[in-house]
């Protein structure tokens, strides 16, 4: 059987993903809101996978150019989002001396 993501099946996935996102994100404390913003920005960098698919299936020069740009942009999104999020999160440290809390 073919695995197709259509109709109600697609709706179910969208609904569940939305709930998962909302539930997880609404637990993030305000202290982490900036890294969360850039972290979620990183997550949609997975679009690079879709752009690669489009580029590999490109059959005309136009498609090749657009596909190339898509992969370039998507890679920038993913890598940039990763680096800045990691840098920010690395700054968050607990007290060395727990008694000073």
């Amino acid at each position, binding site marked *: 059987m073919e*695995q*197709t*993501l259509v109709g109600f099946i*697609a709706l179910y*996935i*969208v609904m569940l*993903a939305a709930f998962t*996102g909302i539930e*997880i*994100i609404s637990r*993030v404390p*305000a202290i*982490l*809101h*900036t*890294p*969360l*913003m*850039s*972290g*979620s920005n*990183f*997550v*949609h*960098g*997975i*679009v690079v*996978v*879709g*752009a*690669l698919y*489009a*580029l*590999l*299936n*490109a*059959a005309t020069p136009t498609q*090749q150019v*657009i*596909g*190339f740009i898509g*992969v*370039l*942009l998507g*890679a*920038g*999104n*993913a*890598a*940039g989002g990763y*680096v*800045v999020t*990691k840098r*920010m*999160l*690395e*700054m*968050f*440290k*607990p007290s060395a001396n727990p008694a000073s809390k």
Partner: protein
Amino acid sequence: MNPKLIIDATDFAAALLFILGLKRMSSPLTARSGIVVAGWGVLVATLASFLEAFGVTADAQPHLGTNLALGVIALVVGVGWAWWSGKRVPMTAMPQMVALYNGMGGGAAACIAAVELSSPLPSPGSKLAIALVGALIGAASLSGSLTAWAKLDGRINRAFHAKGQQYANGIVLAATIFVGIDIISGGAPTPALTAAFFIGALAYGVLMTLPIGGADMPVVVSLYNAFTGIAVGIEGYVLQKPVLVIAGVVVGAAGTLLTLVMARAMNRSVSNVIFSRFGAASSGPGREIAGAMKPAEASDAAVSMRYAGKVIIIPGYGLAVAQAQYKLYEFVKLLQAAGVEVKFAVHPVAGRMPGHMDVLLAEAGVPYDMMHELDEINEEFSTADVALVIGANDVVNPAARTDKTSPIYGMPILNADHAHQVYVIKRGQGKGYSGVENELFFADNCAMVYGDAQAVLVKFIAALKELGAAA
């Protein structure tokens, strides 16, 4: 092994890793590993997607070698540039950098749609329509994010607003949608129509963002983050890639939620942020405030904190402007060494992005268990000997509690005025982001230490060291 199976499995793993990674980000204890977990997801899925080479369409078969080479080049260049720029950007420039990367994601989604549109065998009408909606959102997010970046980065300084701008924007959007409908009903999209559609979408993103003030930009960036997420989700549907749908929807939900949180903490609605120029109207009369501001010497303030039992520090936008977080923590460590209990009270929208102050303080090495959220600390001010306000204004304005006519009325604030003594560090009579006068500065228990935050903190440190040497 079947390459399609490997691709499906890595996609699934990526979706799982994203959710696990985001879950870890809900606590500072685990957040650092969260991004790494999510990172593995993108990495494996990207590598596996080269296996798509085994299943390309017949038309693409002759170009496979070129396409593979192009893919590698694009990846290397994109990752290389982003890695380099991301490592280099100073913390203060984070908002615009996030805007830039976010716009790129929107652009990538739009490119996917464009490839779909330029394909010789157009997809069925309904799929075409869905691809176009994603393209519109993605392209607007690209150009809008770039505009936000330019404004935040100081490359566009003027605020552009003309009379009737709202109508002009509406017309551009309507025209773009009209072209889109034409493409769908026409069946095979012509290059000219496709180009017109994308130009319209890009123009709309620019026009929508230009009139918004620089200080409102973070809300807009967060909104575009949600937009890109949705665009990615939609193109994921077009490509039948569940991992893109899930990642896109999760980010769409996250971005929307963050945008709402930010707007609520600013006591405004999201549409108010986007469609009205804040501050422009709020220069109304305001309440007459009795009393006068009392200046204080930096050294006196420093000494009185040295002998206090408990000091609560409220950082604000001015601390970021002055880049004084390192000096601040140096001062705090001197106080702690003298036995003073010090806590940071961080308002959710202090500064110019959500969590701005937390990142700034963390950068200087302040441990996160010293940073306290509004709800956590607000009752403690009455037990504090000193509240030290550094470059914050709106987030400590008691008018938000009492003055119904104030534009910030109803916004939750930090109760600095409940402390025994309040010191405020600011340069002069400058107003805060909302442009309203602050009663706190006129209160009996409040004294002003004028000067740039960095300069004042240097004086504080010197005063404490002198005291130490004298003792």
